[in-house]
């Protein structure tokens, strides 16, 4: 059942890139139980005036765009709507998907994702939908929102909470 629905999903997405999809909830929490942590806009000029010069630090991290972006409204209900339907799509989920396909049709064993009519897995994604519009968030998307590139050093898996 799950595979058939996912199959439909992918085929639909191939046919029309802007197909609406209805996603189920992925957590037990209700939307009103969630709290959105809004980021605080930072007034660097005021901080610098009071002897707390930080612009340099963030400028080297190319985070000027990010802090510019922070000053604006947030539609909390939209974010909550997104969050309760969000699911992590990583290598584990992709493998599970492939496995399910093979279980249904054993002849497909050993074939690539493309042959299994699955979307190629390029990187880990957060997939969700807002009012039927599919949304996927990747590092690239976040980088674009921060107006910088995905580059720099990263200490992998230090406290075992990150996903391989």
């Amino acid at each position, binding site marked *: 059942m799950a595979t058939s629905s996912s199959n439909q999903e992918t085929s639909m997405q191939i046919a029309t890139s802007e197909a609406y999809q209805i996603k189920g909830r992925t957590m*037990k*929490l209700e939307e009103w139980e*969630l*709290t*959105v*942590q*809004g*980021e*605080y*806009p*930072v*007034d660097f000029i*005021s*901080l610098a*005036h*009071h002897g*707390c010069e930080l612009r340099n*630090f963030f400028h*080297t*991290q190319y*985070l000027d765009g990010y*802090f510019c*972006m*922070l*000053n*604006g*409204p*947030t*539609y*909390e*209900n939209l*974010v*909550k709507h997104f*969050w309760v339907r969000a699911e*992590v799509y990583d290598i584990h989920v992709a493998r599970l998907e492939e496995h399910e396909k093979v279980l249904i049709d054993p002849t497909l064993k050993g074939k690539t994702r493309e042959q299994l009519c699955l979307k190629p897995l390029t990187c880990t994604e*957060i997939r969700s939908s*807002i*009012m039927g*519009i599919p*949304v996927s*968030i*990747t*590092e*690239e*998307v*976040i*980088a*674009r*929102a*921060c107006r*910088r590139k*995905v580059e*720099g*050093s*990263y200490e992998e898996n*230090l*406290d075992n*909470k*990150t*996903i391989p």
Partner: protein
Amino acid sequence: MSENLLPKGGGVDQPSLDHRVFLHFLITLEKANVPKYIFNHMLWALKESQNSNMSWIPYGRLLFEIFHQGGILKAIKLSKIIIDAQLGTVTSKVMNGCTLRKMLLIKKEEYTQLSTNLLESSVVSNLMDDFPPFCRQDPPDVRAHYVYEHWKRTGETIKFDEIPKTMYGGALPIARKRKSKKKATSEADDDEEAFEPKKKTKKAKDAPQEQSVGSEVPTIHDEVQDLELVKILDKRTRSGKTVGSSQSLPPQPSIPRKKSKQNVRKLKVSTYVREEDEEIEASSDLITREVKRKKAADAAALQKALEIAKDIEVHAEALLKESTVEASHKVIELT
């Protein structure tokens, strides 16, 4: 500050390893892969919410910005189903010198408000743009004032179509008051015009119902002209005397006089109304449609009144003639 980039619920007294590493990058000016940190933190938070019911959603603004860039806001705006209140708009506090003061890092006296201080903005959202705080139910002068103020502030004019018909959550008490007043006055006007004629029409109607034959005496006509018509009319109708009707008589000079009187009164009213209308029109262009409607209504009312008046006058004519006939009869009897 690090809470902005790697937010977590609860206190900040025990920073996670990621926090510390990130701070290390920040201080040593080594370039860190911030998007990757953010994304991984988001993944972690999502897994926490799914598995251990963590109720915090990190990066509210960032997620929203992604939606915005993805054009979801546009789609929502196009659908026009959802209003701002349903989307739960919030803007968060600004971190500035004031925060430092609260954190007791600087003394209260040292804090000064700068003119360059960052203000909470809602610029990104197109849905919030210039939501007029009034509606079409407001009195015209209030609307005109708002429009003028808005124009003064922003240099933009609000068109009539842009004003919402009703406020969200029902009609305004002021609007209701105004409406009822309007109705009352218009009704009163109508009554003023229509009340007297109605009475007369009733009486006039009674007269032709009981038809009695009367002879036409055109010669006495001139004599009766000098009599006070209204008195006679009242007398006749109050005493309930029946009189013969004669409709084929030529119109009498006394009747136009009466007509003109009535006309003058109505014209006065109408000019007053028009003057008022013009004033309102001058005050704001927005109300023109309503004014037109009002004008049309007034014109219709006027016409009705005129028609009624005409009817009465015809009947009055008949009555007059009847009275003359009776007078002539009496004269004949006397002689």
